[in-house]
């Protein structure tokens, strides 16, 4: 952390020196906190389950094991947790159902991250007209709740996975852009940006090498929050019954389908609920660790 304070020899710095001297990573500080570690373990386990669970599934994704909503022991073929709404094996459906949600949420967040960061940095660096126009556009997008945007798109084109990812991603852009712009505005005023400008650095290099490293803390925290929300949103859309393939296993859809059978066999609801709950709490814990780490670093920066 002591490297943060510029030494006198840095008075006329070369841009390359700064690239090598980023503040100690938010990630490194966060990983030392117990909440981040627990969060990472939970998320790691669930990601493994969602991606590789299908290889240990006892039955096929669409294989019938007996009548609908039968508890364990009352199905035609032996099961651990009984049968789901159309007679599939609950445990198999559960092992298959995480991947679509996880992949969609991660892709949507990545898309939002790239676009939101770019827009936020450009707005902060250019200020003036461009900043105004960009941020007003962001405000208009924020005027509609994300789930309503998703429903509009679904009503137009049907529930395609690509479009849902695109809508969730694009509607997340203004949220990230605002945070990045807010964090970058004060960085733009700092001396090292003026130094880079006077050295004739290209705009892109200034955004990437001078601004971006200095907003990475705020960005990481926001990215994590948005990932948590995207998981909730995408599984929520599936819960409402809008998925590309209604026959495919999906945790959100599974909860909706098996609600009617809560009394005879609750496992078809309980397993996906536990998984989504743990996944979002896990990402939430990681995000909280990152937020605390970022706040700590900011404080040190302010003091130096």
């Amino acid at each position, binding site marked *: 952390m002591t490297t943060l304070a510029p030494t006198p020899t840095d008075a006329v710095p070369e841009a390359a020196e700064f690239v090598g001297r980023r503040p100690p990573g938010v990630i490194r500080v966060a990983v030392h906190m117990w909440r981040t570690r627990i969060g990472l373990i939970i998320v790691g386990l669930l990601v493994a389950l969602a991606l590789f669970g299908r290889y240990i599934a006892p039955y096929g994704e669409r294989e019938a094991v007996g009548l609908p909503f039968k508890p364990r022991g009352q199905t035609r073929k032996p099961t651990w947790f009984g049968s789901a709404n159309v007679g599939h094996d609950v445990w198999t459906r559960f092992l298959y159902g995480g991947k679509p949600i996880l992949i969609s949420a991660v892709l949507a967040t990545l898309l939002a991250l790239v676009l939101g960061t770019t827009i936020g940095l450009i707005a902060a660096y250019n200020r003036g007209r461009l900043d105004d126009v960009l941020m007003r556009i962001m*405000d*208009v997008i924020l*005027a*509609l*709740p*994300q*789930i*309503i945007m998703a*429903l*509009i*798109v*679904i*009503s*137009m084109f049907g529930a395609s996975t690509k479009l849902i990812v695109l809508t969730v991603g694009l509607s997340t852009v203004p949220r990230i852009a605002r945070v990045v712009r807010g964090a970058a505005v004060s960085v733009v005023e700092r001396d090292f940006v003026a130094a880079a400008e006077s050295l004739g650095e290209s705009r892109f290099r200034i955004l990437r090498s001078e601004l971006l490293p200095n907003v990475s803390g705020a960005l990481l925290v926001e990215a994590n929050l948005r990932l*948590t929300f995207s*998981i*909730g*949103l995408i*599984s*929520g859309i599936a*819960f*409402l*019954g*809008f998925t590309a393939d209604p026959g495919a296993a999906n945790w*959100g859809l599974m*909860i909706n389908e098996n*609600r009617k059978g*809560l*009394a005879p066999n*609750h496992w078809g*609801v*309980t397993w996906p*609920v536990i998984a*989504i*709950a743990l996944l*979002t*709490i896990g*990402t*939430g*814990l990681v995000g*909280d660790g990152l937020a605390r780490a970022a706040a700590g670093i900011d404080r040190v920066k302010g003091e130096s």
Partner: protein
Amino acid sequence: MSNNRGVLRFIARRLLLGVLTLFIVSLVVFSATQLLPSDPAQAILGRDANAVSTAALRTKLGLDHTAFYQYTHWLKGIVTGDPGDSFNARQPILDYIGDRVVNSLFLLVLASVISIPLSLWLGSYCARKRDTTFDTVVSNAMLAVASLPEFVVGIVLILLFAVRGFKWLPAVSTIGIGRGPWSDMQGMVLPTAVLVLGAVPYISRVVRASMIEVLESDYIEMARLKGAPESVVLRRHALPNALGPVFQVIALNIAYFAAGVIIVEALFNYPGIGGALRDAVRVRDIPVIQFLVMVLATVYVVTNLAADVATVLVTPRLRTRMQ
């Protein structure tokens, strides 16, 4: 005097921006739902429909007019309270939606009336008991609840209090047609609880942070030093300055309810506009989708606007800066 004019000018500008935003939203919603699909009449009747009935429906929908005429006609209908007929229910949208608006509004008001005072109390109590065991436990519990999607919270409550565990409450709402949501208060408990649990973590966290910041500021120190009693310090000096960000968050949460009702109403088969929107999307009932999206967007925009204005009016620092 100039002080007042500054505030008025801010309110006027903010109002204008709100109207402009709603106008743009209406353009987007209209063009997205009506203009983009190649032929709404075909979409409604299905691919096998014969040419005569498709043409008849096109005329009825006003599709043979220009896009500009269609848009202004539609917007005029919404503003004057005559949004036209539902494709699916084949009756005026207002007849079909009227009761549902009341039901959703009742749910929204009930959730707000419970969650706002609860979070104000919880947040300021945690701020005063900062870093005690109580504060740590509450903060961490709130963090966990805040991460959960509404339908997960709802299902857990249904499992605990309706279907398994304690069988105290109904898992679905049974509001009689034309009887009003208050006819089934037992059925209101779980839907309201889900919305409250969604909102309280956010509001109380902001209240706590805002209160801590204010309590540590110079002017609170000053008020204490000049010998003002602690209750006066809290009420007269701390609370007004701590309320600014809180208004923002309250508005954000009413706005959140506007989206949350879609999931919550689907979860409990609650007969409100959120459930109606989901059903309308399912059957592509375009006039209903357009109308409901505009209603929800208006709630969203108006609450945010009200929050911005209230923040300026209530925060002494901002009020004086507005000159």
